[in-house]
């Protein structure tokens, strides 16, 4: 990695340590959006507590002229405003980096490092002198440090004003007070420090055609465009904002222009068991329905997911994964539900899973999930995570094809049923393992009994060994069909010996790591799986590489387990890179993990340091 100060223009990480509930989020968003609007690629990650007010919170902003949108693994500029975490925040700064702190009160430990530059700003004092009211003073302190950073990083105050005007369009009185606080910080920094710092922003043209959006909002938008009409859920972090966004979009976009009636039903259920039940009831009855939840909700939904699999009822479930097990760390990210979702529920069950890597895929895969669920008549789980779901990501602007029409699958019309001698729900009339389906209220000849108990291919109750197996085997045939319909894995292969496999939100970290490894002389191919079941391309990639690193964000190597269970890959050649701290993986972690393994291999006596 580059170390000379001059090269840090548009290439550094800054981190802001505050206390939650003080309004720092709006200041951080303002900073990030200002950088984005300067045309410089930027990543923002919010590490917040599961708490309303008073616990430590951090916001990490990475600026990358190369467009690397993962954590780099180092922090060059720290704004340390939380006394509780001050010592560790100071420790985290890379040598040669900068510390901004509130010099209103003395910090005895602040000189504990000689290898960083310390910049004291009397934020509290300035705000106390210039604003009235405790709450206002606290809020303005945040905007004030944004002003300091604007000066230090060479951000354009006019651009920031524009953003404030956009944010507070409906409350214009806030624009002036915010601008005043911004200017206080800006002027103080200009007066006391040599601005800008060597790590600064220079406008570029690299964000044109891009948007900054979080994955939950993007997924909600996907549901709107897919034509979903029934949304049932139980509040749980970090999925809540997905449902809030859906409701918000629908209340603007789905009102009957004449009557004002709502072309959607939004149901806050009594728990996750009811939420998934409502989704099944609505889907069974011909509406596009979905729920959003996180790990604990998936655990509760297991029984109904098994019913949906066996009785062949479509459903779309968004699992915005957080840290488990149990309640875990609700505001930290993980990929810990891969196995729980793939095989949710007792008995022989398996579910179609989609793995978006960013908000753009949350949008497209949301729509795709409904098509797959209805085509395959089975639940489709979209496994996002807190990092994608709740952080704003820079991604190419979404597009929509107006030619799109929902694929409602093999639902028989009234006329089709009329022509049938007799309708049988669970036959395989087309040889793809997918039966015909009817909706209630259409035709009495289409009526059938939906049950989770043993049933024959004609839909009747059974305890007969053969009749039971016929249906179970046909479900497996349907699973083979699913393999051909789900999104392909993305593969970048040049016939190298080493392959790296990832899933979901770690994509950008892997891409940067690949470039860094190449610079170290280690060339590797790359595959990102995007769906379960795995297609034959996954099988092939694993077969073609002698050594395969599997990077994922859980302790138990769940993706690696899935790969060994569902493909013919030789287990020994899969090496795990496991990151499960609750923070998104950095590119540095991957580079170090790969290099350590390769070093271990070259000194043959030494056992592998990573993996298994």
């Amino acid at each position, binding site marked *: 990695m580059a170390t000379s100060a001059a090269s840090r223009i548009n290439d550094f990480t800054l981190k802001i340590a505050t206390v939650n509930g003080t309004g720092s989020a709006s200041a951080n968003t303002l900073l990030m959006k200002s950088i984005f609007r300067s045309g410089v690629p930027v990543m923002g990650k919010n590490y917040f507590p599961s708490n309303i007010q008073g616990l430590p919170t951090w916001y990490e902003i990475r600026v990358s002229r190369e467009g690397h949108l993962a954590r780099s693994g180092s922090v060059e500029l720290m704004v340390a405003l939380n006394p509780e975490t001050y010592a560790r925040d100071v420790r985290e700064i890379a040598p040669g980096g900068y510390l901004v702190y509130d010099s209103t009160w003395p910090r005895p430990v602040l000189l504990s490092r000689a290898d960083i530059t310390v910049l004291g700003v009397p934020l509290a004092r300035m705000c106390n002198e210039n604003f009235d009211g405790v709450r206002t003073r606290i809020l303005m302190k945040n905007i004030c440090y944004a002003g300091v950073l604007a000066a230090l990083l060479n951000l354009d105050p006019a651009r920031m004003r524009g953003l404030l005007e956009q944010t507070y369009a409906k409350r214009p009185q806030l624009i002036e007070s915010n601008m005043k606080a911004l200017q206080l910080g800006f002027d103080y920094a200009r007066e006391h420090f040599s601005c800008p710092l060597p790590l600064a922003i220079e406008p570029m043209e690299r964000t044109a055609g*891009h*948007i*900054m*959006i979080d994955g939950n909002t993007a997924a909600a*938008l996907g549901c*709107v*465009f897919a*034509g*979903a*009409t*029934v949304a*049932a859920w139980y509040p749980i972090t970090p999925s809540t904002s997905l449902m809030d966004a859906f409701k918000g*979009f629908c209340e603007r*976009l*789905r009102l*009957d222009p004449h*009557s*004002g*009636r*709502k*072309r959607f*039903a939004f*149901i806050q259920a*009594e728990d996750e*068991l*009811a*939420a998934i*039940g*409502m*989704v*099944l*009831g*609505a*889907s*069974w*009855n*011909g*509406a596009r*329905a979905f729920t959003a939840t996180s790990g604990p909700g998936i655990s509760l939904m297991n*029984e*109904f997911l098994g*019913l949906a699999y066996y009785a062949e009822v479509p459903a779309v479930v968004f699992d915005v994964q957080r840290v488990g097990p149990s309640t875990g760390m609700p505001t930290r990210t993980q990929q810990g539900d891969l196995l729980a979702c793939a095989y949710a529920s007792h008995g022989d069950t398996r579910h179609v899973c989609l793995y978006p890597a960013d908000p753009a895929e949350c949008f497209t895969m949301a729509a795709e999930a409904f098509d797959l669920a209805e085509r395959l008549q089975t639940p489709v789980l979209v496994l996002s995570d807190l990092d994608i779901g709740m952080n704003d990501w820079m991604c190419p602007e*979404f*597009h929509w*094809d*107006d030619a*799109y029409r929902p694929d409602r699958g093999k639902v028989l019309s009234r006329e089709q049923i009329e022509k049938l001698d007799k309708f049988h729900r669970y036959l395989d009339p087309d040889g793809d393992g997918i039966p015909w389906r009817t*909706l*209630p*209220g259409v035709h*009495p000849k*289409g*009526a*059938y*009994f*939906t*049950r*989770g108990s043993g049933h024959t291919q004609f839909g009747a*109750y*059974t305890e007969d060994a053969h009749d039971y197996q016929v249906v179970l085997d046909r479900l497996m045939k349907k699973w083979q069909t699913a393999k051909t319909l789900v999104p392909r894995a993305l593969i970048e292969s040049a016939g190298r010996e080493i392959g790296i496999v990832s899933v979901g939100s770690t994509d950008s970290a892997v891409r940067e790591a690949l470039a860094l490894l190449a610079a170290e002389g280690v060339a590797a191919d790359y595959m990102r799986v995007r769906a379960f079941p795995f297609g034959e391309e996954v099988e092939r990639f694993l077969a073609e590489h002698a050594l395969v690193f599997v990077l994922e964000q859980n302790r138990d190597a769940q993706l690696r387990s899935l790969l060994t269970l569902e493909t013919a890959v030789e287990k020994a050649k899969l090496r795990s890179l496991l990151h499960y701290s609750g923070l998104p993986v950095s590119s540095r972690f991957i580079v170090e993990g790969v290099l350590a393994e390769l070093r271990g291999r070259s000194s043959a006596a030494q056992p592998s340091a990573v993996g298994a």
Partner: protein
Amino acid sequence: MTFIAKPKLTHPSLPQNALGLTRRAYEGALSTLCAGCGHDSITAAIVEACWRLSLEPQNLVKLSGIGCSSKTTAYFVSGAHGFNAVHGRMPSIATGANAANRRLTYLGVSGDGDTLSIGLGQFCHAIRRNLDMLYLIENNGVYGLTKGQFSASADLGTRAKKGETNLQPPIDPVLLALDLGATFVARGFSGDKRQLVPLIEAGLKHRGFALIDVLSPCVTFNDHEGSTKSYAYTREHYEPAVFADFVPREAPILVDYAPGEAREVALHDGSRIVLRKTDSDYDPTDRAAAGAAVQSRMNSGEYLTGLIYLDPSEARAEFHQVNATPDEPLNALPYEQLSPGAQGLRKILSRYR
């Protein structure tokens, strides 16, 4: 047993309803319950009520959970879709189904275990939402399929077949429903079809959540001396408070009621319920009084039956009114009305640029 086909021979002289259908059109598969089971009588009452209402079979949706009672939805109206959910979770399936298509008639059949133990939460919340459905409990105070354990509706002091005495107070669905704001609350007895059929007709037509708790003795596990849910005990101790006659829209009232005895309540679709009180002091439109009367009878070991409470105005908003959904079912809205399109997307995304 459901795999035995019933003969579908129809005698030409069988009476037909307004749709030209005989009662046979409202039957289902052959029951697999024990001979003499109260549930089979309720099934027969449902067949009769649906036939009398001239329901289009495909416009009925049958929902159930798990247990003996929940099996019965296979035994009536074979021309209707049925959904046998997981144990205790029928109300959520009903909620979703109803959300998707408000035009159909939703009939949930559940048991005391399915409703009052594993499914208590969902039952309560369906009432809170005033979901437009008839929820019928086939209440026998006992778990049948697992062979005779007490359920949550078992009365204090009742004795199990194997001799154990129940020492926990029951959860009474009628009192619970009254407390939670249900707009139609009734109790019946599987052995009194004359009372039950009009209750089912009225419950199916009522807009909002209608509960009928039907005492339905289990001949195998709860029909012995010492049980408070046996046929003998129930016959002795059930006390009709209000008879409810259901009168379809535009049909004349043919019965002569004594002055002051009957009170007519109009439903939203023009049909009517005529309430006949057996005790002139009882007011079935007074929620608090109805609850007190049920409680007081229960204290003396008796079951007050009939249409115990009816919100005469149907004023409480049902699920779709609360959600302000259109009259047209959500599952029938054309895609063009649901998607903002490519141009709409560009507009939406402007604030994310």
